[in-house]
């Protein structure tokens, strides 16, 4: 339906104008039948314009400035110092040059009646996900003197929760007789054809159910 206005593409452009401009300073452009923001947060528009009264009490104005200072200051501090103070952060993720074609990580495999299965899905690792769990295990291994005992406890904890959730029906994974922690390594393939099968893996920890421990003579 022709409503005598601008063509459809222009209308979308105008909608974007409206959406990202400042409503309170829009006005009808004479004769165009369109709205167009002419002022707003832009530097040029605001430096010469008198300041409208903000309708805040002096106390409230100071309080709001304190809030602004806290949020801005927290971010500036973390960005400048390159330190993490959640919820502020320098946001360093993916910031390094990384051209390595080798990928190493730690991964937990469940021991089934006829082999092993990697525990990767959110359902099987809940409330962890594969990223947080691998990072946590790596930090335990690299940063603690009691790494061996702590890793064993960590793997046992993941396995116990997996089984508890399986038995409660939260997921339909295979029953596990135990769990193993491996250091795994891939040579990256351009099309990730080997993603399911690490090129190398070294077992670091194994935990099993009490029955299996006694049967195999492993420590509990």
């Amino acid at each position, binding site marked *: 339906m022709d409503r005598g206005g601008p063509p459809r593409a222009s209308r979308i452009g105008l909608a974007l104008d409206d*959406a990202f401009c400042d409503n309170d300073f829009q006005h009808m452009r004479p004769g165009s039948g369109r709205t167009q923001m002419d002022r707003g*947060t832009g530097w040029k528009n605001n430096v010469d314009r008198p300041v409208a009264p*903000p309708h805040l009490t002096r106390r409230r104005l100071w309080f709001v400035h304190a809030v602004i200072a806290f949020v801005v200051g927290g971010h500036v501090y973390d960005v400048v110092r390159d330190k993490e103070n959640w919820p502020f952060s320098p946001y360093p993720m993916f910031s*390094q040059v990384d051209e390595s074609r080798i990928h190493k990580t730690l991964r937990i495999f469940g021991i089934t009646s006829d082999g092993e299965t990697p525990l990767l899905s959110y359902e099987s690792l809940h409330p962890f996900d594969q990223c947080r769990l691998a990072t946590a295990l790596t930090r335990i291994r690299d940063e603690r003197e009691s790494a061996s005992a702590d890793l064993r406890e960590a793997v046992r904890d993941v396995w116990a929760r997996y089984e508890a959730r399986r038995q409660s029906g939260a997921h339909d994974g295979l029953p596990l007789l135990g769990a193993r922690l491996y250091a795994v390594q891939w040579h990256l393939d351009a099309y*990730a054809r080997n993603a399911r099968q690490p090129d190398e893996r070294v077992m670091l920890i194994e935990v099993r159910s009490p029955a299996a421990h006694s049967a195999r003579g492993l420590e509990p």
Partner: protein
Amino acid sequence: MTALPVAALTRWWMHFWFEPSAASNLGIARLLFFGLLLLVYLREDFSAWGGVSPTFWMPLWMFKYTGITPLGADSLAVLQICWKVSMLLSAVGLLSRVSMVVAFVSGTYLFALPHNFGQTFHFDALLVIAMGVLALSHAGAAWSIDALIAARRDPSREPPHSAEFTWPARLIWVAMAFVFFGAGFSKLRHAGIDWVLSDTMQTFLIRAHYGVSDADPFVSWGLILSQWPWGPRVLAAIALGTEVLFPLALVSVKARRVLVPASFCMLLGIRALMGPTFGGFLVAYVFWPQWTAVGQRLRAWIPGKPVPTIGAQRIAHPHT
């Protein structure tokens, strides 16, 4: 420039933060923010963190220095119900001030808790800041049950234009600008322009398919893109440019029209090609559009409806 820099800067500062505006825009943003956040986290169960072995405990500074410890699973279950109810109340605007404060306090604890177990994710930090800002604002003054109740008591009562409805959204804009600028600046600090010119992006695109993120990529197009001679570098340049330039969206309307949608699409692209989820981060974009203008524009498109004059109810201003 016709004024001294300090005076001009002061004027710009006051305009940016404290330009009086209508209550509707912040009210709609509040409704959308808490409503969408509730939808995103409705099925999220934080209570399981209460049962995780203490061997995983690697506390954030706020937990370490305050001695706050994880609540038990039952307590967490109660707390997350309180949080979700408070988000619902905040969205519909019932007991707005109290419900937004409860949403902020309980939400901060629940969002922070998982980060004490080995890795700090960044997608929810902005949400905590946004909830905190809203808790200190008058965002419930419009598009809320509270406003309906107040209007029933006094039909002539309408919240006047005020800076109270401007600074909260602006502060959330600024916080989001820090997120993107911080990410870009980190890349320049740690890698420099090599982050674009090296094979880094190609490596990221391939490695994403080896189960390195909190979720797997939606599609395998990243692998195809990674094999184009300049594909990954162009992608890296666009990403870095969007991040570093994002603060321009605060001061330039033209930049805002490009950078805000571009950053939104970039996050969707990262999710699709590389895997990382952003939780409710995308919800924070509801503070960018001027919803009252969008609503009036949409109404203008409906056949038979009179085209409203946007800004007709604006306050008297010497230069408008």
